[in-house]
């Protein structure tokens, strides 16, 4: 058991999550669209990931994951898509606020 993949996810999420509260981007007032976009993309990419992991496109080094698996995939890999979709939307809204501010 090793938490390295978890730490990478935490590092990706930390500042975007923190700044999403500080920057007043209004993302959380749009919880419906936020959850729909994150959910649909995650479902599509989970399906892709499960299929090609089973096929052998890639594998996860057991030395660096906590070892809890769902449908053959480490829990970190499931969280990866929720983290990345959130961070993508945060970055887009932060850039929009900075670039399009009147």
């Amino acid at each position, binding site marked *: 058991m090793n938490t*390295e993949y978890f730490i990478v996810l935490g590092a990706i999420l930390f500042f975007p999550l923190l700044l999403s509260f500080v920057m007043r981007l209004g993302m959380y007032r749009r919880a419906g669209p936020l959850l729909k*976009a994150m959910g649909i993309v995650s479902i599509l990419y989970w399906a892709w990931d499960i299929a090609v992991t089973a096929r*052998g496109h*890639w594998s996860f080094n057991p030395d660096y994951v906590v070892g809890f698996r769902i449908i053959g995939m480490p829990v970190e890999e499931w969280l990866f898509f929720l983290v990345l979709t959130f961070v993508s939307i945060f*970055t*887009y809204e932060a*850039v929009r606020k900075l*670039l399009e501010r009147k």
Partner: protein
Amino acid sequence: MKEYTLFAVGSAIAVVLLDHLLGTRVTVRRTFWVTIAIMFFFKIPSNGYLTWRPIVIYNPDYFLGIRLGTIPVEDFFYGFGLITLTLVLWEFFLRRERRHEL
């Protein structure tokens, strides 16, 4: 052609087409390209770490074997597809919700 190469490039093209089909026009905005630049900037250390360690192990049967540092080139197309689909759907659901409020 290797499978991951095909899927990754195909997904990147498909999301740009979807953006035009849905009329979200995310990929024609400066905000979008600045977001992609920022996401790719942070992708290098995070994806780099995952592939350097390696936490994720790629099967040479399914990708070209061309890496930027330790990152397979396919990962940039994959990442572009993931980020872009997220932003297209975010914009799509955001607009739909705003329309319903009018």
